[in-house]
Every structure is written in C-alpha cells, then in structure tokens.
C-alpha cells in the first residue's frame, strides 16, 4: 500500500492541532504555576524594599494572603474532584439500584444478580485470584531482585532491565504477551512459549483457552509490568537503611539470612506496605490486560472488564453500576489502611 502524504494531510493537520493544543494547555498550566507565585514573591520583595527604604518596621508576613493562594490552587482541584469524581460516584451508586432503563428502582436486585449468576461469580473469583497473586508475587519478586542487585557490579543496568516494562502501556504489554502465548496448529510456531515447548519435544498448547491456567498467564503480564515499580521503591528503601546499623550488624556477625530478616525487612517495612497497597489497588482496577488479551472470554474476565461490558455493551447500566460500586467498596478499606499507615509514619 502506498502512503500518500498529500491525501493524509487532514489527519496530519489534526495530529498537529492535537500536539499544539496539548503544548498550549500544559505550557499554559506550567506558566501559571511559575508566574503566579513569582508575582506574589516579587510584590513581597518590593514591599520589603520599600519598607526598608522608608525605614518603617518590616511588614509582618500576612497569613490571609497565603490562604488566598492556597484556595487559588485548591479551587480548580476541588471543582474537578466534584465534577469528575463525587457526582459520578453518587450517580453510579443510584444507578446500581435501578433497572436497565435507569428509570425504576429495583432495590438490591442487581447485587443479588451479581452473586447468583455463575459467570459473574467466576468474575469475582478471578478478581480475587488477581488481587491475591499480583501484589504478593510482584512485591516479592521486586524485593528479591532489589536485595540481590544491591551494590552489585552492574546494578544500574540490571535495574533498568527489570524497570523497562514499566514504560509499556498495559495494552501494549498484553499484545506483546499475546504473541508469546500465540499458537499455530501445524508448521512453525510464532509464539515464544509454544516454540520452547516444541523444541523441548512437547506438543504446542492453546495457552489462553484453558481455565484457570489462562488467568494465571494473564497475571504474569501484570507482574511483568509491576515488578519494576516494586523493585525501584524497595531498592531505594534498602539504600536508605543507615549504614551504621548495617555495620553494627556485620560486626555482630550476622549471616546474610539473618541480615535480611532482622535488619533489612524491619527497616523497609513501610516501603513494602506502600508497594503492596499500591499494587493491590492497581490490580483491582485491572481492565486493559484482560480486555486486550482475551476480552474476558474463556473464563478470564475480571470485575472492571465485566463492568464495562454490562454498562456500555449490553445496555445493562444497573448491573454495570452494581459491579462498579462493589469494586469501589473493595478498594475503600485498602485506601483507609494506606492513609492510616501514612499518618502513623508521619507521627512516628
């Protein structure tokens, strides 16, 4: 197919507009953030200079102005939060108690449906498997990796290798792994996994068709992406352990095993919790991977994917909203735990 730049011109023009608009908006915001505080600072400076010149007592730093600045920056955020989060959350909750036309109240019918329909129960179980496995395995993997490469010779190279997948979108990662799991009946396998199986003398398999193996294979994708994040945070925490503690432990003659459990782990515990909590929330929301790799077929669906299907594809906004609310309820305790944890740390 030939590519004719002239014929595609409208699309390129559109692309250019998009880029320009993006730069203008982001640039404008950055400018605002730069100019406004500078302007206030300059006013204060001028006043100080004037005060010094006239020999009058220095004006006290006035609190109300600070408050005004705070509100100036907070207002848009609060407004966006209300429009983009609070109102939709309330509306979704209301919709979850209504029928498919969003006109009649049906009480808890949508929630009853959620726990009685076999396929949806399967979805809930899958989500549970995800949220149990991903944070634990990804954190464990990141932690082991961080400990192993700590102060190793090619530490930065080794770390970048595992961190690289972080730069890939979930959709991109799912497509990459779909090729890894790809299957061809006869002839050359185009999938890496099947090629390995074949070269070891095995029979190629259709990996993504077999439940519950397929859910585990999808979880591998998420771990592949997120282990890098866990590694980076934990590695930083390990580096932040005071050297004198480590030295003292060494002088006492600890084994590496004891070192890890007695010194490293207690020291980086807050960081581990942050990583696990962050990954848990990200995992509960997982949507892109499942949608791209299997679209929830072959018993691999998860809550977020099913929510989208019900609400937008099948025209069942009530059932979709019920799933959304359920997801929200699941996330709340994790968020509360996280906030309490942060507060304790700050106090401690």
């Amino acid at each position, binding site marked *: 197919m030939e590519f004719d730049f002239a014929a595609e011109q409208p699309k390129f023009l559109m692309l250019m507009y998009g880029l320009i608009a993006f730069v203008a908006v982001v640039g404008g915001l950055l400018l605002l953030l730069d100019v406004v505080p500078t302007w206030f600072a300059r006013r204060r400076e001028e006043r100080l200079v004037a005060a010094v010149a006239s020999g009058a007592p220095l004006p006290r730093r006035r609190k109300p102005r600070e408050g005004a600045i705070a509100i100036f920056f907070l207002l848009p955020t609060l407004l966006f939060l209300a429009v983009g989060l609070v109102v939709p959350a309330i509306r979704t909750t209301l919709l979850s108690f209504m029928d498919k036309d969003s006109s009649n109240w049906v009480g808890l019918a949508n929630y009853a449906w959620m726990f009685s329909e076999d396929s949806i129960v399967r979805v809930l179980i899958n989500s549970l498997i995800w949220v149990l496995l991903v944070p634990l395995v990804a954190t464990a993997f990141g932690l082991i990796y961080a400990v192993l490469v700590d102060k190793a010779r090619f530490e930065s190279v080794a770390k970048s290798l595992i961190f690289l997948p972080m730069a890939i979108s979930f959709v991109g990662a799912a497509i990459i792994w779909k090729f890894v799991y790809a299957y061809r009946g006869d002839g050359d396998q185009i999938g890496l996994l099947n090629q390995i199986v074949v070269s070891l003398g095995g029979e190629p398999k259709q990996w993504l068709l077999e439940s519950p193996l397929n859910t585990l294979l999808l979880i591998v994708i998420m771990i592949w992406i997120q282990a890098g994040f866990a590694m980076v945070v934990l590695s930083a925490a390990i580096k932040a352990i005071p050297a004198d503690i480590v030295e003292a432990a060494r002088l006492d003659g600890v084994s590496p095993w004891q070192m890890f459990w007695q010194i490293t782990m207690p020291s980086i515990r807050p960081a581990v919790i942050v990583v696990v909590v962050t990954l848990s929330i990200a995992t509960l929301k997982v949507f892109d991977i499942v949608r791209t790799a299997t679209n929830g*077929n072959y018993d691999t669906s998860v809550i977020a994917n099913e929510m989208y299907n019900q609400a937008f594809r099948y025209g069942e906004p009530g059932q979709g909203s019920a799933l959304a609310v359920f997801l929200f309820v699941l996330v709340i305790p994790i968020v509360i735990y996280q906030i309490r944890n942060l507060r304790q740390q700050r106090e401690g």
Partner: protein
Amino acid sequence: MAFARSRQALAIAGVLGLALGVTACGTGNDKKSGNASKPECAPYAKYQGHDGKKVTIYSSIRDIEADRLDQSWKQFEDCTGIDIDHEGSGEFEAQLGVRVDGGNAPDLAFIPQPGLLKRFVDSGKIKEVGADTKAMAEQNFTPDWLKYSTVNGKLYGVPLGSNVKSYVWYSPKTFKEKGWTVPTTWDELISLSDKIAASGTKPWCAGIESGDATGWPATDWIEDVLLRTQGVEVYDQWTTHGIPFNDPKVADAVDKAGTILKNEKYMNGGFGGVKSIATTSFQEAGTPITTGKCAMHRQASFYANQWPQGTKVAEDGDVFAFYFPAVDPAKGKPVLGAGEFVSAFADRPEVQAVQTYLASGEYVNSRAKIGDWLSANKKLDINNVPNPVDKLSVQILQDPKTEFRFDGSDLMPAAVGAGTFWKGMVDWINGKDTTTVLNGIESSWK
C-alpha cells in the same frame, strides 16, 4: 534567575498562542456554498435551501471505507451546501450510548443492530423519520427491510448498506484442479467435505476471534443453519423470543452446525484443531484457501475485502463464493444477511434532507460505483456494482423469491445478541456441550 525563566516561558506561551490562533484561522469558517445552478446538481434540487448547515454522522465505519463514504456524498455536499461531518469509531456500539446519554448525540447514526436501534427508540432518543424520508424509503425498500427499523408502527430509520452472509468462499482454481464441484444441497456439501478430508486436506476453515466482538462469526453459522433446518417462521420466533433460546429445534441446528465446526477431521485448515477456531481472527481465517490448506470458508460477502492483495475475486479467479446450500432446496432459498440503518437523533430540516438523500437511488448508485459495497435499495443498478460477489449479492437481494432474514444476534437484545450468545459460542467451540451453552444464553434473556 526566576524572573528570566518566567519571561522565557511567557515568550514560549505567546508564540504557541499565536500559532494556535493562526492555524485556527486557516481552517475555520470555510463555509460550503451550494452550487444549485450547475447542471450536474439537478438531482439534488429537492434538498436545496440548507446552505452552510452542518450534519454530523456517527458510525462504525473507519479508514478506507470511511474515505469512500466521504467521497460518496461529496457531490451532494457541493450542490446543497450542507456540510456532512462523518466520524467512525471502533467502539461505536458502546460509545453511541455514552454519547446519546451524555447529551452529545450525533445528528445521524448508522446503526447495524435493530436491537440497539429499538433501545434508543424506547428511551425516546431517536426521532421518527420525516414524511419525505418515509416516502423515499417505502418507494425504495421492501417492507421486510423497513420492518427492522419500525417500532410500534412508526419508522425510525432507513436502510443503508447491506450484506449477504450465506456464502461459502472457495477457490475455483483449486476446485477445478482437484475435480471438486460446487455443492447445491447440504448432503452434497457434507459428502464433498468427506471427500476433501479423505484426500488429506482439511475441508473447512473458520475463525471467530474478533477483538471484543469475539464469537459473532459462529452466531452466523447457527443462524444460517437454523434457517435451513427449520425455516423462516421458527427463525422469526427464535429471534423475537417467541420460543426459548434453548428450544430443541435450536439445539438441533446448533448440533448440525457442530457436525462441521466441531469435527476434528474437517477443522481447521492451517490453524490447528477445532479449538483453534476460537483464537483465529475472522479476518485471517479464510486466507489458507489461497495456499490450499483448506477448501471452504463460510463468511459474508464483505469477506471480499479480507483476501491478501493480488487475490483475484471472480468466478474463474483465485477465490469466489457459492451460496451456502439449503438442506431441502424444495423448501425455498433462505438467505441470511445484515445491514445498517440511518437513524436521526435530531429533526432539523437539513438532517432530514441528508436522511432522505441516503435512502435515494442517487446515493446508493454513487456509493456503489466507488466499490465494495451494496444495498438492498431497489434503485441500485447492478451495473454500478464492480465486485462480482457484490453483484451476486445484489441479484440475491433483488430476487423476489429470496427469503431474506436479518442477522438474528443483531435483532436480539444486546445483552444476548452481543453478549451471552457470542460468549456462549466461544465456550461451545472451546468444548462445552450444546445444552449447557443454550441454557446459559436463555437464562440471560430477560
């Protein structure tokens, strides 16, 4: 230092703002004006009087096909001064609802599912067509076609494009070489399949992977077989839930489709066993025909677009299609097909003018000439249809003896037709038994 930096930022922002302003001026307000006086504009005389108005259209049509659409109504735009703004989306079915509910409805939408159309009619979003449009539609389409966009006796859309699904693609070259003949009955089809299987080639190819629509090609199989085993009356009862989804007659049809689709000896040329159907994309499913790895692929007329470049689609070419044979030809010639309907979410005069125009003979002929498209519109001149398979389809659609039925899954509520039916078919191919699958689908139809 800080001051210098902010100056710099100011300068950048200024330049950007200027650039934005200039480019905005470049494209803004180039109002199209009607050229009613030109001789080639005579057919558009009745759509005059909306100079400078804009009509937005939303559809699932993208890329080359979308460019062809833009081309097809270019002259209409030039002559009437109406600016048609078409936007295609791969997420059309889901996003249309979001846009309509969000108060951002397009003026017109090309809706391929009567079930979805009915949903918007029920919620009062789609406008009834105007008198001119209705007259045009009744003149150009059979009552059968208008039935799909009629709710409670009122017409809510006009048919646009159509396709015929009851086709089996094959390679005339290979058939000639091997001495195979095109079957005309179901029994001949099966004995030919056995013969091909015995010769060491897998007779059939199939693939139902289609992104988030995975499963739909298998629903077409079931619908086509049900039309052949039970006839149009039972089919109509089934699509309107007059009989349960898991009726024994339907189960029979599914099992009959299974004698081909779930037969390891027949399936799945070049891709693997029966289960590979689930993971083979519908676009590439038929391509092994060109390399001789399989012989037949049941798929709609629009599959003509999927062949690798350079494949000659013709009766004596690399690939062609034959009519999916009836079980008992004496009982008639059922044909499964589909199409999209133009529905309006606004009733401004210029929107109605475009809607009327899209139902007219001028439009369908202007679109057909551009290629790879056909319509059930009676005014469509078969000489304007370049593609031989499309020609065959037009003949079938315009044949008064044809018993045409619309794609059943598109008629059902979306939760079934685009949900559990698709999913159920994936499970069925993946090894679940017919009864369990059909019971599951039935229980989701509320």
